[in-house]
């Protein structure tokens, strides 16, 4: 095995130079989302000859005039037949500065479910606006979801600028309208605006020759340089236990490692810790990996924590620090997005998965729903079905140890599972 420890970036030169940005794309049907992704991949030379040949052949047989870059992202048979994207697809590309993971989310069928899914792991969201249509209901919806899922960085890409004669006036009007609307969203802090044409490549990778009035960066430059250093919580120490490693071998006779991935904060040998739910206190003896012991562990590192004292710890428990403990309780308020085909039942029981723990939960109340196109609260409607978002009060069968989603995306999120069908029916963000 390598002697390189997966700890801080200074220790292993070359690999650390490249970091990772996960972003999601949102737009309504025909906003040119697939074309934009195709353009990013194509102009940054991340498309292979055999892929290009395959889409050239498909474009011809479909009767498309130009090579249809959108075909690069539509993978399933039904998607190609219908010319639409059905499910979230993940794409990968790299430049010398960064590696990128794109969650490409469809514009219509199951739009909310898919966008919420793609947004849950993203650092950045690109919201596409058709320059001819301006800020429409879907734009509001996409921005609301980015805000709800607390995506740190948002790029509003005003696309199809070629169809409005690259007009600065049209662009500025859309920017002003978006700013006016988004002032109602609390968490959208870093919003950037870009005028582009995905079809012709203006301001995607290459600077546009048609918009002298725009002096900002291209989309790719922005993606390469946006600061993402503060995207994990490095203050409140949280370590959900996944698995207990006990080798029972002669060499590691007394070894008892609590394996997991750090969900927040920094852990060091010697740190005083507390284990939930038992409340027992101990100290960290060492932090183990197959490459050797770590001097510190932080999110999102996988490691095993060994404690000074022998206490009973199993999967679903959480190791925390006593000076900064998580919230605990059985009454949970959360913003919930419903994914199930069957409506949520108030009074109904579901399995709830939170970090590595599973409990049962009863839906006590639907406090209100949100009209995600207007952001208005709806308080008198108790029907809660597919793609709806609302505020829900839950009672769990055992205490959860959690943080507010705004403080920690990992310890502040959960899913609900229908115990009859085993389907994931909802995503929840704890208030």
């Amino acid at each position, binding site marked *: 095995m390598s002697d390189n420890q997966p700890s801080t970036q200074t220790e292993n030169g070359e690999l650390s130079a490249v970091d990772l940005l996960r972003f999601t794309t949102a737009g309504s049907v025909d906003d040119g989302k697939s074309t934009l992704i195709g353009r990013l991949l194509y102009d940054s030379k991340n498309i*292979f000859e055999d892929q290009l040949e395959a889409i050239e052949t498909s474009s011809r047989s479909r009767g498309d005039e130009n090579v249809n870059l959108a075909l690069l992202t539509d993978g399933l048979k039904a998607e190609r037949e219908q010319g639409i994207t059905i499910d979230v697809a993940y794409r990968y590309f790299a430049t010398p500065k960064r590696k990128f993971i794109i969650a490409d989310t469809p514009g219509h069928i199951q739009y909310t479910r898919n966008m919420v899914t793609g947004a*849950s792991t993203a650092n950045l969201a690109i919201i596409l606006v058709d320059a001819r249509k301006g800020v429409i209901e879907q734009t509001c919806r996409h921005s609301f979801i980015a805000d709800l899922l607390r995506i740190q960085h948002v790029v509003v890409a005003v696309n199809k600028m070629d169809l409005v004669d690259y007009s600065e006036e049209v662009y500025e009007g859309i920017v002003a309208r978006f700013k006016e609307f988004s002032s109602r969203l609390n968490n959208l802090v870093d919003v950037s605006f870009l005028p582009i044409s995905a079809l012709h490549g203006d301001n995607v990778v290459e600077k546009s020759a048609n918009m002298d009035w725009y002096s900002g960066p291209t989309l790719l430059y922005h993606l390469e340089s946006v600061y993402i250093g503060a995207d994990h919580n490095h203050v409140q120490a949280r370590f959900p236990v996944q698995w207990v490693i*006990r080798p029972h071998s002669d060499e590691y006779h007394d070894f008892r490692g609590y394996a997991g991935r750090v969900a927040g904060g920094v852990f060091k040998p010697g740190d005083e810790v507390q284990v939930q739910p038992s409340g027992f206190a101990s100290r960290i003896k060492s932090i183990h990996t197959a490459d050797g012991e770590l001097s510190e562990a932080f999110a999102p590192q996988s490691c095993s924590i060994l404690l000074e004292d022998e206490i009973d710890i199993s999967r679903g428990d959480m190791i925390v620090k006593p000076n900064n403990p998580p919230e605990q309780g059985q009454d949970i308020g959360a913003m919930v997005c419903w994914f199930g085909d069957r409506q949520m039942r108030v009074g109904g029981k579901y399995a709830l998965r939170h970090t590595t723990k599973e409990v049962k939960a009863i839906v006590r109340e639907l406090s209100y729903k949100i009209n995600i196109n207007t952001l208005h609260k709806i308080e008198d409607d108790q029907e809660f079905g597919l793609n709806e978002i609302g505020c829900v009060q839950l009672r769990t069968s055992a205490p959860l140890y959690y943080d507010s989603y705004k403080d920690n995306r990992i310890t502040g999120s959960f899913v609900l599972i229908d115990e009859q069908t085993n389907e994931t029916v909802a995503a929840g963000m704890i208030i």
Partner: protein
Amino acid sequence: MHSYRLSHIQQLESEAIFVLRETAAQFEKPVLLFSGGKDSIVMAHLAFKAFHPSRLPFPLLHVDTGHNFPETIEYRDRFVEKIGARLEVALVQDSIDNGRVTEEKGADASRNALQTVTLLDALEAANYDAALGGGRRDEEKARAKERFFSHRDAFGQWNPKNQRPELWNVFNGRKQHGEHFRVFPLSNWTEMDVWEYIRHEGIDLPGLYFAHEREVVERAGSLLAVTDFISVRDNEKVEKKQVRFRTIGDATCTGAVESAAADLDHIIAEVAAARQTERGTRADDKRSETAMEDRKKEGYF
């Protein structure tokens, strides 16, 4: 100020280890599908790291078409011993002998599609409820739609239009009796990431991945190795070339590329400059535009 950042390779490693541990914790009887190719080698290496210093809490399963390059089998046995894993082998030949499948006929005959039956039979016979695979989303367009935890019905089939949403790092591995999951810890890795990781970790690979001299024939744009398992046609010319393999699968459908890359640094430079995807050498993917999707729905890897 101290910067708490992981490089992208460290993030991918941490994510894969998390998924491997979730698999061990959520399923009663997982198994790791091991072909002797680089992706399954990296996955087994990650599993070794995830549970260190204890042994792997699941065995490795090799679905053996019988059409192997001999180097693959030698490597497999050495590797399994080194990481202290248990190995099980399911033979496609057994499925043929007991009449579960019929061998394809003709010059393009391959046992690639037959593997699915052998795999599903092996999973069912031993009650495996999760099969870890080395599939990556960047490999192929249908794979781009895969989840980390991918549900399979009682017939082993994948329903790409109705997959469970997968949010944050919460994985739902619940299932009915008789159903199983495919789990893909390397979902977010690219071919380049796999090679960089192999170099970073100093992982030993089968010699097939490095440039060597070999007799090949050119067929449908790929260079196929001349072995006992393929029949050379009259119009084909056997040539000796310096080649290496970008993927290793069944010897009848895995093409080689001409290359002088004899070590990892040169391979990485070659991958960086490559203008063809690695599955561009796989005849099994070229049977139709949706060859992979069709096979995956049936229960392929």
